[in-house]
């Protein structure tokens, strides 16, 4: 989870055009100045390209903080790893 957080931070910073050092697990997406549905979709595309996972859009849209997104990604990565292990 902390691993995901460290690589997720620059992605969020990129899409939100917000300094990476300022972004924590508690950062709320809606607080970013340029946030909106288009930015949310771009972040989703960046996340999926970077981590090679696919998120469910319904649960993704409910995420409020960067930390929640990191957990969601880590869950998907865990699922993927388990699937490959099987």
């Amino acid at each position, binding site marked *: 989870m902390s691993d995901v957080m*460290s*690589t997720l931070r620059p992605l969020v910073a990129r*899409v939100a*055009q917000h300094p990476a050092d300022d972004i924590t697990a508690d950062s709320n997406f809606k607080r970013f100045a340029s946030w909106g549905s288009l930015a949310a979709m771009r972040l989703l595309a960046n996340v999926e*390209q970077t981590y090679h996972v696919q998120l469910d859009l319904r649960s993704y849209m409910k995420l409020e903080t960067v930390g929640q997104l990191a957990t969601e990604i880590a869950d998907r990565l865990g699922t993927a790893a388990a699937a490959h292990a099987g």
Partner: protein
Amino acid sequence: MDGRRPVTASLPGTSASAADDLLERIRVLRDSPGAVDPDLADILATEDDALLLHEAGRMLEGVTASRVSASRPRRDSALRVAVAATFTADNVVPLLRAALLAEGVDARIHLCPYDQLGVQLADPASALAEFEPEVTLCLLDSGALLPRDWDPTDLGAVRNAACDRAEQLALAAAGFAGRTGSAVLLHTVPLPRADRRSVVSFRGGATLGRIWREVNTVLLDAGETHDGTYTVDLEALLVDAAGPLRDERQYRYGRMAWTPQTELAYAREAVAFCRTVAGHGRKVLVLDLDNTLWGGVLGDDGPAGIELGTTYPGDCYTDLQRRALALRRQGVLLAVCSKNEQTLVDEVLSGHPDMVLRPDDFVAVVADWQRKDLHVAALAEELGLGLDSFVFADDSPFECGMVADGLPQVDVVRLDGDPSCHTLKVLDPPRFLQLGATATDAERTSLYRTRRERHQLSTTHDSAEDYLRALDIRVGVGPANGFTLPRLLQLELRTNQFNMTGLVHGEAVSRQFTRSPDHLVLAVDVADRFGNEGVVGGVWIDRGPERWVVRNFVLSCRVLSRGVEHAVLQYVADRAREAGAAVLDAHFRPTARNAPAASLYPSAGLARGAEPAGEDGTVRHTARLAELPTLIPDWITLDAKEAPDHV
């Protein structure tokens, strides 16, 4: 530069940091208004990560083309480009901006509100009309053409409805073009997977495929017939795109009909259109010969030895010739700029049975040993064309670097690597852009050839110092050993152009020379910032107490015109002096192909001996070692390998 990154290759922490570095670089540029970053345009042009380019494009708003490229923009004013789409196309705008800047085009981009394409085109008081676009990009998705409740059992009705809508869109576009003078770009529309799979029978699938192409034919027709209206075949273009047409989640959630990869493919094609409208199309293709228009080195392999024809790899070069001929027929001017013997080149161009291109296909054929950047500049002058209409294609990184360095306006195509890829490197991305063909295109070569003859001027022989200095050339010279001798023997046999006598010592004598105190065989290797050329030359020497004699000196034509020859002579003179000799002799014997080498010894200060030439034509050049000037150019670092006496 052709190592395009696959879209999915970014792993967290590796290329992700390269991406952040690029964005940081752009941020610094954007935040310091006077700053320039002349390499940025090339990076943007070769980057294929659509998501990264999107963020780059967002940050580049307000940054002008002159700040990201070394070449001057060709227009004083920004090109006004409008985007009107039947779906959510907001993401296309930053990609367009990045791609426009990559091509040196300043633009103002206007995005029409979502799905108002028809209204915006038709209403004379619309925001689109008020923007007065010079280029109007109409982006369409299948939803704008295909009825939502289309019935697979009544495909005739589907056809009529969809063709009708395409017709209306095309007429609205043509009407806008006619009324406002804007160039309007339509495109063919790919049919999404779900629609294709909605027809279950194979026969019905064939019918749907035909119908959909009829719909696209309506759009293509508009681009063929209406003034100011053009159509790009996006459906065909996407065959080579990196991923799926659309992401179903993005389409359902936000009516985004294209994935980032589709958006990028479209944006790059749309930018090619913008450049055409802005008059940025290239008009002249300057081609190298050896390993470009044919395989092999003419001076070494001879006219019968070069690779052309129907089998690999000759067929690659023949294909490039065919494509160049096709360009010539469409009005592109072809020229040759090659380091070669002119008479030999003329012989091949007119007489080689496998040549597709003939002398009349070229506006100029330049084959000599001068700098290519000077030749290209002179050709531009003679033809009365700007350097920004030139494309230069060559297999040598050295020549490409020299032209790119000296003439940043020229579009340089580096044809290294497998010759199978030469054709596509020249043709894609598109460089020779025209809106429509004209009747004079086919005659343009002869028109310009005449113009050039009228305006012939001699090229100046300026020194190449600045470029050569930047190359960081390192020449290594030392006694041949078991590793280098085989390559030296091969060079002695194969090298024709820079071969001072054409006389072959062969393996037995050469090996004996390496062991004898009275002789010396030297191996020469060359490296520069483009890489290591390896062993490229050899020298065979007699070491007398008073007099050293250079019996033969061969050097691969790959490294000519850089001062390497003089560096090698410097090494020889230094060793001779150290050994206590007073005189340096060097033999030259003219052969059918070694004219380029004839001037070396006189240029190095070795005067022709007073005696007549020997029976085999060999001429002795000589100098007193104490009187020889410094020979090595100051842009070369000489690496003297172990002293010859310690062999």
